[in-house]
């Protein structure tokens, strides 16, 4: 299976990218790492008369820490997340999430911004961005804006991006004091899309009680979702009093995952609840260290 024909553009500036996207509208798609788009083109699940390659655009790659924020350029390869000691120190959750994305050959090519903008509901980075409250820097023909992760994911493969906008960078808050984080998922084989997964980021106050709790689930709905009920139940609690199984059940209380070839909806909910319990326990354990 081969992609259908298209016109290929390889601009060097963000302004040229957004101008091309504005000019060609629905007939145009940005190409980042290509690890999702190229298979979809090859399978003819989608097709565009114009592709705009972001790989030769200046300034879209790299990692920078300033004040309490880690800024990752959109075209930064996913492999960098697991290799860069600066990332492991500043936002360890990113280093823990990266090895779960596809295989190392995929991560060598796949990009951070590409995975987020593709917005597959079963993928890891959108759930991480949602749990950590990341901010997306977006550029369009009329300038730049920021979109909070909570407002970014609107549906399966759908985001708040306009067709002529691209993500240029993503900002993650640097891990705070007495804070722990974890990600876990269940997949049939390593590197497959997860049947379901969960992310937790937990902070403790000076007295050792939970002061902030963020849980996001992936693979259970059309977007990654925050488990707000479970989060509320955690805040103020002492870790010794927390029943993580109960938190897992609470996290799935208002979700109705759908059936597919890999799992029924109820199976998927049970898996997600179980995985949620695991990440909450791990994050609490790390926060208390």
């Amino acid at each position: 299976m081969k992609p259908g024909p298209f016109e290929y553009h390889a601009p060097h500036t963000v302004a040229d990218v957004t101008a091309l996207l504005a000019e060609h509208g629905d007939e145009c798609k940005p190409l980042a790492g290509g690890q999702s788009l190229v298979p979809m083109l090859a399978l003819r699940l989608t097709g565009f008369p114009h592709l705009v390659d972001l790989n030769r655009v200046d300034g879209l790659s790299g990692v920078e820490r300033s004040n309490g924020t880690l800024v990752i350029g959109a075209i930064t390869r996913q492999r960098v997340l697991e290799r860069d000691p600066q990332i492991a120190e500043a936002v360890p959750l990113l280093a823990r999430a990266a090895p779960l994305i596809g295989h190392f050959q995929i991560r060598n090519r796949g990009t951070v911004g590409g995975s987020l903008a593709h917005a597959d509901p079963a993928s890891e980075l959108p759930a991480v961005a949602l749990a950590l409250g990341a901010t997306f820097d977006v550029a369009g023909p009329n300038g730049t804006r920021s979109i909070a992760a909570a407002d970014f994911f609107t549906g399966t493969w759908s985001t708040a991006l306009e067709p002529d906008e691209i993500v240029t960078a993503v900002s993650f808050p640097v891990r705070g004091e007495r804070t722990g984080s974890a990600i876990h998922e269940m997949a049939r084989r390593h590197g497959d899309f997860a049947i379901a997964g969960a992310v937790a980021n937990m902070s403790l106050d000076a007295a050792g009680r939970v002061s902030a709790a963020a849980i996001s689930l992936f693979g259970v709905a059309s977007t990654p979702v925050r488990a707000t009920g479970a989060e509320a139940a955690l805040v103020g609690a002492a870790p010794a009093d927390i029943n993580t199984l109960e938190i897992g059940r609470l996290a799935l209380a208002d979700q109705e995952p759908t059936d597919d070839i890999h799992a029924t909806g109820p199976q998927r909910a049970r898996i997600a609840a179980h995985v949620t319990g695991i990440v909450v326990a791990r994050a609490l354990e790390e926060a208390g260290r």
Partner: protein
Amino acid sequence: MTDQAIAITVNGERRKGRTEARTTLADFLRDELALTGTHVGCEHGVCGACTVLLDGEAVRSCLVLAVQADGADITTIEGIGPEPGRLGPVQQAFMECHGLQCGFCTPGFVVSVTSFLAEQPAPTDDEIREMLSGNICRCTGYQGIVAAVHRATELIEEATA
């Protein structure tokens, strides 16, 4: 759609060609440069048979457009050995440990394993299995392949000792 000119370095040699933008790097290597050692299996990034090194990193050549590789440095299975007609340590290990039967997937395995061992010279069994998950073999059952990776670490160590 006009053809585009491409110049890449393949196995140390400067190669030029023209192709449509939709041509994958895998097809360009095979059809334009006659380097048919890179095998094309699934053509959508699942099987790993087409794995090559792009600027030193293992990638699926079916998921990179040839035009995207313009200016890049590519190593294919033909360039993995020390010289034509001689096997590299990973190839030698696959031969010794029966890490192949039909051989269709083998170029992708050899390139992936070569890249992996350069970064992680003493992997555990679990790390090897996780690393191999990006390549699919439908004949061997993987036991021989895992054994070959262990053997390759010995051969590389002997060669560098």
